[in-house]
């Protein structure tokens, strides 16, 4: 965020159980500048947010103001983040799109490792700001492995899995996450950057990730889309004009308790209040999802939670294959949510039948 979550006051964020907010270092460095934030006592004080803050390295963006790529050195990134004062700061990494191939990926991974040492050296506030390293390496397991080892050697307070959420296919995505969570230390947080959709978060959590960030809930709200257990609800749709149900009857947020789809429909894309209310609901939905993931794990009921979640989202049992594969590796049994043919298909594959004996149903 640039000092605020779109349209929500800090009181509301506290109410919905938000524990940590991501601050966009690039935007904040531009306006109002990290020096000003520092002078006024740090970002917590500036925006009056009593809970946790995380800043990214500021190295991931092009300038929206003048179009120039913003070049930061590791030292500059850390210096800016030191001034902003977030509780967790991110190392400057060299990110490349997962859709590219070739030596650039390897170059980026090694550079990321060189830069982590520079970040550590430049970090002036190791006692109140936690510097997380970011694992790069594209979709290449060998490179990822080298990067993980390199970062773990530095004994950082936490580790992020970066370079994903950029257009790679889902099957590659989860495999990288799985590999990293398998090799990163058990007792440190694992943060999958830029993820994401509720389904992705559930899968990554099953694979052992702990933290996520995404603009999706608020961005999709501004287009009139609500997050619901079944997936999404497009409030702009004409059918919503007569629908007097709440957005999600199972949701306890103030939007679902007070407003009908019909009313929200009349607001979305026309009045600022529409985005506000939808953003509130969507963020509440994400907070609830996190809470439920957390408590189901603590209570030893995680597989049931996952099945329940998948059943609501895929009532016909047509769970995407990448999810099934990931859950298998995570050792979460979701066979009860998969449609029978899907299960049979999976078992046929396992018993090595001839290809022409496997029929697509």
């Amino acid at each position: 965020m640039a000092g605020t979550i779109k349209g929500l006051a800090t009181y509301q964020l506290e109410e919905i159980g938000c524990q940590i907010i991501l601050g966009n270092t690039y935007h904040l460095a531009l306006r109002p500048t990290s020096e000003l934030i520092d002078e006024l006592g740090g970002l917590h004080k500036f925006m009056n947010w009593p809970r946790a803050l995380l800043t990214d390295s500021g190295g991931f963006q092009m300038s929206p103001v003048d179009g120039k790529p913003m070049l930061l050195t590791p030292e500059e990134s850390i210096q800016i983040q030191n001034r902003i004062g977030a509780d967790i700061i991110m190392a400057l990494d060299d990110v490349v799109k997962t859709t590219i191939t070739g030596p650039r990926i390897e170059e980026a991974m090694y550079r990321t490792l060189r830069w982590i040492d520079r970040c550590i050296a430049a970090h002036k506030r190791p006692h109140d700001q936690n510097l997380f390293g970011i694992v790069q390496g594209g979709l290449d397991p060998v490179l990822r492995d080298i990067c993980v080892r390199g970062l773990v050697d530095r004994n950082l307070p936490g580790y992020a899995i970066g370079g994903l959420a950029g257009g790679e296919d889902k099957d590659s995505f989860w495999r990288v996450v799985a590999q990293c969570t398998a090799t990163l230390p058990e007792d440190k947080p694992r943060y999958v950057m830029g993820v994401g959709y509720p389904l992705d978060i559930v899968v990554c959590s099953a694979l052992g990730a702990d933290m996520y960030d995404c603009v999706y809930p608020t961005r999709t709200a501004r287009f009139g889309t609500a997050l619901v257990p079944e997936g999404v609800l497009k409030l702009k749709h004409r059918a919503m004009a007569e629908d007097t149900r709440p957005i999600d009857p199972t949701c306890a947020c103030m939007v679902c308790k007070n407003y009908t789809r019909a009313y929200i429909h009349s607001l979305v894309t026309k009045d600022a209040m529409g985005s506000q209310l939808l953003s509130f609901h969507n963020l509440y939905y994400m907070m609830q999802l996190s809470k439920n993931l957390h408590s189901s794990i603590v209570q030893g009921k995680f597989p049931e939670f996952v099945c329940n979640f998948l059943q609501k989202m895929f009532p016909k049992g047509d769970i995407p294959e990448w999810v099934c594969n990931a859950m298998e590796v995570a050792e979460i049994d979701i066979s009860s949510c998969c449609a029978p043919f899907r299960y049979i298909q999976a078992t046929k594959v396992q018993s090595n039948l001839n290809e022409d004996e496997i029929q697509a149903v």
Partner: protein
Amino acid sequence: MKFAVKAWSNGGARAGILHLGTSTIDTPSLLLSTRKGLPHFISPDLLSCLPSPESRLLHVSPLHFLEGLSMKTISKIGGLHQLLGLHDHCFVSVPRDSIQCLPEANSTNKIGASFETPCGRLLIKPVEYMEMISSTRPELWATLADEVPAWVSDKRNKTSVDRTIKWLDECISLSPASGAVFGAIVGGSSLEERRRCAQEVATRNVSGYWVGGLGLGESMDERPALLNAVIEALPEEKPRLICGLGLPEEILQGIAAGVDLFESTYIYHLTLGGFALTFPLDRTQINALNLAPSDVGSDPRKINLRATVFRKDTMPIVEGCTCYTCRNHTRAYINHLLNVHEMLAQILLEIHNTHHFLGFFRLIREAINAGRFEEFRKEFVQRWR
């Protein structure tokens, strides 16, 4: 609805008590302006941080809902309280909304009143208007009027009065069982027509009066005479509502004439412009007023938080103000939000400005109750000239 005048001050200013719905409101009072029933920016769960019960009167234009929500659906949901999730508030329906639903006198005809709205020009017939009232079920509503700007011909003006009275009778005949009705009074800038209209409406069985057609081109100098022409013809014991007066001086003018309820777009325009009200509300502050040089722009009543002078200002908008914005945020933060075009800026400003303007009304009521409204008014106008 029940209304009683409790105190008079010099001139026509009076303080009263209005019982509406489940609320008891001291008058003169301000109606908060809304868009489709909710504030423009303040999220409904933050509405409760505004002073109560003064902040409970909401002005709603039923025309807003024509963009995307059928009256049938609103009826099915149960009316405004259900639709908006605001059960402690009172809704006052007036078709005109001085921001986005402006009367279009050239297109109004004998069939209905024309309005320029975000979904185009709409012609509203009395029977359609009453359907909206029945579906939305506000606590209080004004009858449909033919509002004309100050520069129309005498003939057109006279027609507007005749039409408004005819529509008043039609609306009353179609009136739902619940909800208090305010008779609309128009007449442009003609003293005679204003008087004629008021006299006619005074004979109707209504709970109060809505003075329409103002804020549409007449000057502030013309207005007192027009207001007096209307008010003189109206019974004292029924409340008077006016829309379209914005500035504090205009409000004071209306109160001096004997108006009890005001709908104003002042807060909305201030907020959009990045302005925050800062004129002192505390009598001791007023007496000891000593403006620091840095506080003075060209208008010491409000500050423009976009100004760079506020970049590092860690003061709240008004020190000692108990609104959510001043208790939690600084001028520097709001300045930043405005610079990066974040909606939170408007939310925080609307909260503060509403809180502050309601405080202004409180001062007015205190002055009336103490019998010194005219002094208060002179002082206010003088100081901020």
